[in-house]
């Protein structure tokens, strides 16, 4: 198992390398540069800036230096927009915030979505199922930028239960976490329902019924593991999606997370930051997918990891 995890993580490295290469080159090919401003700066100033950030070197040289720096010292270079900050510093400040938001949101999404989906499957075609699935449909179709202002309006500005924005105490967590979690919870509910329905209709659940087991035991012991597999395999990309989607939530709730740099760094032509962010998101996506693979092993004994 440990060998598998190590091997799985090692396969990430070449992919990550490719991602980094692509992003590094692509951002530089896009028109415009990091030091363009509305007010033209003198050519000497521009040249000095280009020299400072090595932009006058050929891309291959820039790339080699960047890669050597990243591998040997873990340095991703200075931000080209925030000259007094390094990329690793910016990521180090914001990634934990996004991760905290993302992990809580995922936890809440699973805690809400999975039981709802199971309920829908167990009480298939009853009013409970209909209500649960209607709620899920609503959750999927209502985008976060609509949901968030509604939540703020009701819970912060009308009821005064929770703060409107910022990132201070656990109370500041509630609304953004719910907002990030609900669409995902809705999706999980649908996945869980479909997965559970498939399992509930399966032969081995019929066997379990024929044994005289109660409905509760059948669901918890026999159906749940298999029924949750689609949910588990969704959690990997789902978590990455949550981090990317947190862009909206972070903006609306003014949370100092990494989401803002995702789009902003590209628009600012902050080459170093863009490459750093791509590395982090790519790495996170791949690690969470690897985590899903490992989780699969725990859930489904038929999965052979060490093939």
């Amino acid at each position, binding site marked *: 198992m440990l060998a598998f995890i190590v091997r799985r993580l090692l396969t990430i490295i070449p992919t990550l390398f490719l991602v980094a290469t692509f992003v590094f080159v692509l951002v530089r090919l*896009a*028109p*415009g*540069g*990091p030091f*363009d*401003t*509305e*007010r*033209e*700066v*003198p050519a000497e100033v521009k040249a000095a800036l280009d020299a400072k950030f090595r932009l006058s070197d050929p891309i291959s040289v820039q790339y080699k230096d960047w890669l050597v720096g990243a591998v040997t010292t873990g340095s991703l270079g*200075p931000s080209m927009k*925030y*000259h*007094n*900050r390094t990329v690793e510093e*910016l990521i180090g*400040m914001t990634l934990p915030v996004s991760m905290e938001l993302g992990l809580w949101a995922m936890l809440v999404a699973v805690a809400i979505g999975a039981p709802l989906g199971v309920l829908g499957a167990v009480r298939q075609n009853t009013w409970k199922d209909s209500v649960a699935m209607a709620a899920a449909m609503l959750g999927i179709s209502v985008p976060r930028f609509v949901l968030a*202002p509604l939540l*703020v309006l009701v819970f*912060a*500005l009308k009821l*005064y239960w929770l*703060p*409107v*924005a*910022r*990132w201070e105490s656990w109370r500041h967590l509630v609304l953004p976490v719910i907002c990030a979690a609900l669409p995902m919870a809705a999706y999980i509910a649908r996945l869980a329902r479909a997965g559970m329905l498939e399992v509930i209709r399966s032969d081995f659940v019929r066997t379990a019924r024929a044994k005289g087991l109660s409905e509760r035991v059948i669901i918890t012991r026999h159906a749940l593991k298999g029924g949750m597999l689609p949910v588990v395999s969704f959690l990997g990309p789902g978590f990455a999606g949550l981090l990317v989607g947190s862009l909206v939530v972070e*903006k*609306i*709730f*003014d949370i*100092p997370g990494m989401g*803002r740099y995702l789009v902003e760094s590209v*628009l*600012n*032509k902050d080459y170093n930051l863009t490459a750093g962010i791509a590395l982090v998101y790519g790495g996170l996506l791949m690690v969470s997918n690897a985590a899903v693979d490992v989780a699969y092993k725990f859930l489904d004994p038929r999965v052979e990891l060490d093939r």
Partner: protein
Amino acid sequence: MLTRSPVGVKTTIPPFPEAPKGLESIAYDAANEKGTGENLQLFTGADKQVRAAEPGQALPSGDYDVVGARGAVSCNGEKTYYFEVVARDGSGRRGVLPGCMLGPSSTPPSALLVAKWDAVPTFDAKRRVDPPEDPQALGFVDAGALGSDPSVVGVRVVDERTLEIEAEFPTPYILDTLSHATSYPVRRDIIEPFEAKGEPDMWTRPESIVTNGPYEIDAWKFRYEIRMRRNPHHRHHDKLKIHNIVWMCVESYVSSMNLYKSGELDYIGDNGSLPPPYKPVLRERKDYKAAPYLGTYWYEFNTKVKPLDDVRVRKALNLALDKAQLTEKVTRGGERAATHVVPPFMGGGYSEHVEALKAKDADLFATPEYSFNPELARELLGQAGYKVVLDPKDGYRAEGMPAIELLYNTSEGHRALAVAIQAMWKNHLGVAVQLRNEEWHVMLKNVRDRNFQVVRFGWIADYDHPQTFMDTFMAKSPNNRTGWSSTAFESLIHKARRTADTTESMKLYREAEKILADEVPKLPLYFYAKSTLVKPHVKGFFFNRRNEQLVHWMWIDEDWKVEKPNEPAFPPETFPAPGAF
């Protein structure tokens, strides 16, 4: 020719925390300027220590006294001096140090400090080349003169607390330019160690930065908040009623309004406006503050491409726009329709001049010839060869007129305005307009490459004087992307800025503006306005046209609900106006 400016500027540079010993023993020996410097091997790299002062001899670290100063050498690419030092420990060790290596007490040799102004050369008129007649000056010091010989800068340190600036000609707005961020005093001794390390930007980090304002940084969570406290060294330290300030860095307007609404913000801040959709509602509120802002929103024409190379076409496009409609229906934030370039509330005597003109009903730019005038616009377009015919079904159609492309950077506000203008040009002139929106940096590149026809830009005043706008129309200005130039305009500007008499000067500026209004290289749309929300318990908030709200003028009134009939309009303590001390 240089003449002495009638405006004397005395600006205080804050003293260092403690005057270091040994400073008085440093003297610049002009007679010894040549010769000895050649012995030096100077190291200006990352290593803080001077590795070899004299050939083959390293200078050990420790405390030193300066015993003499020697002639000019080059260090970090600039001229500086080196100093003979002797160790304080009595060992008799001697060495030499270049001036650029001497820092404040933080780095060894700790006792030494060399203030930069010892090395600033005084202005020598003899070395000054005559100013070129070609009127292309951009600032108040000729750029050509600056480039050829940095020593001609008419800036002197008179004494430790006085900076003397000599201007080429009477420059009434010089005070205002000094209130711009670029001329704030900074600490050399803080900056230089970072420059030496090759990290010239790092001194601005909260752990390093030293500021001289009424408030200093307490804590800085990057792009989240800046906490400030009273600066104990500030001269008005004990008069500041607000002791701590939290500046929240809020990304979205809606969040900041929510924070304001929930009471977490007392003041929405001066960085940006309120979102236009909310303005009609917010405008009715007592805590809504709005004021004109020194800026002009305009479209720039590429005057080198057809059909925009024809002044009649440009003028027609200008006159076909009902700008009052744009500010009332689209921007909705108290902006004012612009028929000319300089905001009428501009300082430097401009606003007074405009008021006087208006009183005499002699404001040229209020006449129909320069205001919204679709008939005249159609006539001009016809003269340019694009006859405007009225089709009973489709409205106006400019025959033979190619479609115009309007470029703007991606933003909801710019788009709304562009769509409205597209409709106006279609309705009044029958000119088809294609909208093209590009992400900011892409747009800048295309504009630089002259790959545009009409592009959205604007200008925010750097200082409170018409000159800041006029500069952007000079042929050599990098901010003139239109390809348009006019010698008549430039000589008017050249004359105007050298004219000491304000009324005369403003008259010339207005004449120059008329050229702009006649030739329309840029199409002014509106004069900016800024708006914000301030809680009623925040007192001492005064809007100004620079939109610089100084916290040290403000205070919090705990029982603000109680009517105070005798409350002064200004804070009880009078603080100096910005820019003056």
